[in-house]
């Protein structure tokens, strides 16, 4: 530690500097204020001992100048003075002195004062350093927030939120919003809307919106139903969100072909269908997303008939919990009441709800994200959205064929059905009705695996015990499987409105007596409850129902089906 002594008296300087050197300090000395300022800049001392009365420039003036030069660092100044003149002492404090030392100097007191001020200056300098770091962090954070917000906005808004039939009020409490609203046009017509409210708000709450919007938009674009989407969203959020974080959400599909509204509601309190003279609550029947395991999750949707210009009203609990100056909440009752209000033709429902809410809360500050959406089921408009949307790739039925081989070890871990669906949608877009096709493929694969490779006997499934036994056997045999393969081939012959798919499944198993099943099926096209092939026969009859033709080879290890499809997108 370096100390600057400022005193015009040589004796004093010598005595002080002797004391300080003895205690291990580095000492520099100046004879007056001017010299002190020069030495201060040159030597950068950590502490100054300053006499008051000096020629050229006194201690007060020197102190003012030095303190004004040290705004970013604390340099303690101790005045050397006789503790007799109160005016002089108060002047010392005024000009920025940090302590006094009276003459004659006492070594112990001198050391104690220096130590104390050294601690203060360390503290000050640490705080100053931290403050500087904090400021630079804040600047960085603000920049990062801005970038993140741009990323968020571009990720969350590829849908059709800006469509004319969607009125939206979003008022986030902070830069990021725990509320999420997504809307997208289905490739086959109609709208998907997701209204969500993550636990908490701010950045942490909005992070979950990334996987959510990803699943919502990509699955909607691929033609999945809201059941499939809500299941996948739940699975993904359960897997990716930390415990205690989840998403209250309401998914709505406006199906303009069948004129129905399908919805799945998990803990969104303010969801309604406004049908002009009646209002139906889209009740929550589920837990929020991201809580239940896939096996315990229900993707069941409710269906309500709709008419042109019916309106879907969605709001997050921020509206219901909005408080007025007396601490009263807006509440579900006021909310539904204002939906029932008879409106003049020039006021729309959306604006009316916001007006009522504003009147209620007045100037009260928001405590949660307040989000309100009103979606009008304007059939013509939604139709028009779909045709705009068709700017996306036009698929035409084409000639193609692909073959897949799965060997025993791959079979244990791969489900070929979604894989085939994926390939199909890459080639033909969403023209092929994948729900039926998926069922056919699943049955074909199960038959090849269960009977062909694993040699299981379906007839045991006719009793409940046998049913359980069948699946237990299946699992253990699949585990032990160490040879064999399944060959899958899918070929398309296009025609004007679609195509014929030739689907072949061939397994390396022993096959079966084909004549038996052919006979059986010749006499029964529907499922015969009394048949011993009650469970096992179902698959084949389903395939026969959906396919134009089903044929086995003589040895029974190869099945060929022809499935005719018509273009879904026209």
């Amino acid at each position: 530690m370096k100390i600057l002594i400022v005193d015009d008296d040589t004796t004093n300087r010598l005595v002080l500097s002797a004391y300080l050197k003895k205690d291990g300090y580095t000492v520099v000395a100046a004879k007056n204020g001017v010299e002190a300022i020069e030495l201060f800049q040159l030597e950068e001392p950590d502490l100054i001992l300053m006499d008051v009365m000096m020629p050229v420039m006194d201690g007060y003036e020197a102190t003012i100048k030095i303190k004004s030069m040290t705004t970013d660092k604390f340099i303690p100044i101790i005045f050397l003075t006789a503790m007799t003149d109160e005016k002089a002492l108060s002047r010392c404090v005024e000009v920025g002195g940090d302590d006094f030392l009276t003459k004659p100097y006492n070594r112990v007191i001198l050391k104690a004062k220096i130590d104390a001020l050294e601690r203060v200056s360390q503290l000050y300098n640490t705080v100053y350093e931290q403050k500087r770091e904090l400021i630079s962090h804040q600047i960085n954070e603000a920049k990062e927030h801005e970038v993140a917000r741009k990323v968020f906005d571009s990720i969350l808004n590829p849908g059709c939120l800006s469509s004319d039939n969607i009125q939206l009020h979003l008022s986030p409490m902070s830069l990021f919003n725990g509320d999420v609203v997504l809307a997208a046009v289905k490739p086959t017509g109609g709208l998907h809307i997701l209204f969500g409210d993550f636990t908490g708000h701010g950045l942490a709450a909005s992070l979950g919106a990334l996987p959510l919007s990803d699943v919502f938009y990509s699955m909607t674009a691929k033609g999945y139903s809201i059941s499939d989407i809500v299941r996948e969203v739940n699975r993904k959020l359960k897997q990716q969100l930390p415990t205690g974080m989840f998403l209250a959400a309401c998914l709505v599909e406006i199906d303009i072909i069948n004129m129905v509204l399908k919805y799945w509601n998990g803990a969104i309190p303010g969801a309604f269908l406004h049908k002009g003279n009646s209002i139906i609550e889209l009740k929550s029947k589920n837990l929020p997303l991201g809580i239940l395991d896939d096996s315990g999750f229900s993707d069941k949707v409710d269906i309500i008939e709709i008419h042109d210009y019916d309106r879907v009203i969605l709001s997050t609990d921020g509206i219901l919990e909005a408080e007025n100056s007396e601490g009263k909440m807006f509440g579900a009752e006021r909310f539904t009441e204002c939906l029932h209000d008879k409106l003049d033709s020039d006021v729309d429902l959306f604006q009316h709800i916001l007006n009522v809410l504003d009147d209620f809360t007045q100037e009260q500050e928001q405590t949660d994200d307040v989000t309100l959406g009103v979606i009008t089921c304007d059939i013509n408009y939604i139709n028009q959205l779909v045709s705009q949307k068709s700017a996306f790739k036009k698929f035409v039925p084409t000639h193609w064929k692909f073959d897949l081989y799965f060997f025993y070890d791959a079979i244990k871990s791969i489900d070929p059905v979604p894989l085939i669906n994926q390939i199909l949608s890459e080639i033909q877009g969403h023209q092929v009705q994948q729900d039926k096709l998926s069922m056919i493929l699943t049955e074909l694969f199960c038959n090849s695996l269960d009977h062909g490779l694993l040699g299981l006997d379906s007839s045991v499934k006719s009793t409940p015990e046998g049913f359980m036994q069948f699946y237990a056997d299946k699992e253990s045999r699949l585990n032990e499987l160490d040879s064999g393969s399944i060959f899958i081939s899918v070929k398309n012959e296009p025609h004007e409105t679609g195509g014929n798919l030739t689907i072949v499944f061939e397994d390396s198993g022993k096959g079966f007596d084909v004549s038996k099943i052919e006979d059986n099926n010749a006499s029964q096209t529907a499922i015969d409850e009394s048949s011993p092939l009650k469970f096992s026969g179902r698959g084949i009859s389903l395939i026969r129902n959906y396919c134009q033709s089903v044929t086995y080879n003589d040895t029974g290890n190869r099945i060929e089906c022809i499935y005719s499809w018509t273009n879904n997108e026209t």
Partner: protein
Amino acid sequence: MSIDLDVINELKEIMGDDFDELISIFISDGQTQIENLKLSIQSSNVEDTRRFAHTLKGSSANLGLNALSESCMTLERNAAEGLPEDASELLENIINRYNTAKEILTEKL
């Protein structure tokens, strides 16, 4: 205790060879201050009288020369509002005590 020998001994111990320099500087500076005081009292310069007394008060205190320091303090204080009538006597007192201190300090060399 007109002279605190502990202070002087401690300084001698701490400063080693520099102690001699300290003493000779004090003796010559002290002499200068006393000459200055004489002149300022003769010319009735209150401001200067107070300042020189103050300086000698400080440096003598630091060497444990308590009696000398007290005499300087009396002069400084009495000169707060005009030159005191007994200024010459007070100066006489300072000179005596300075000479005593000088003898003792010189012995320590």
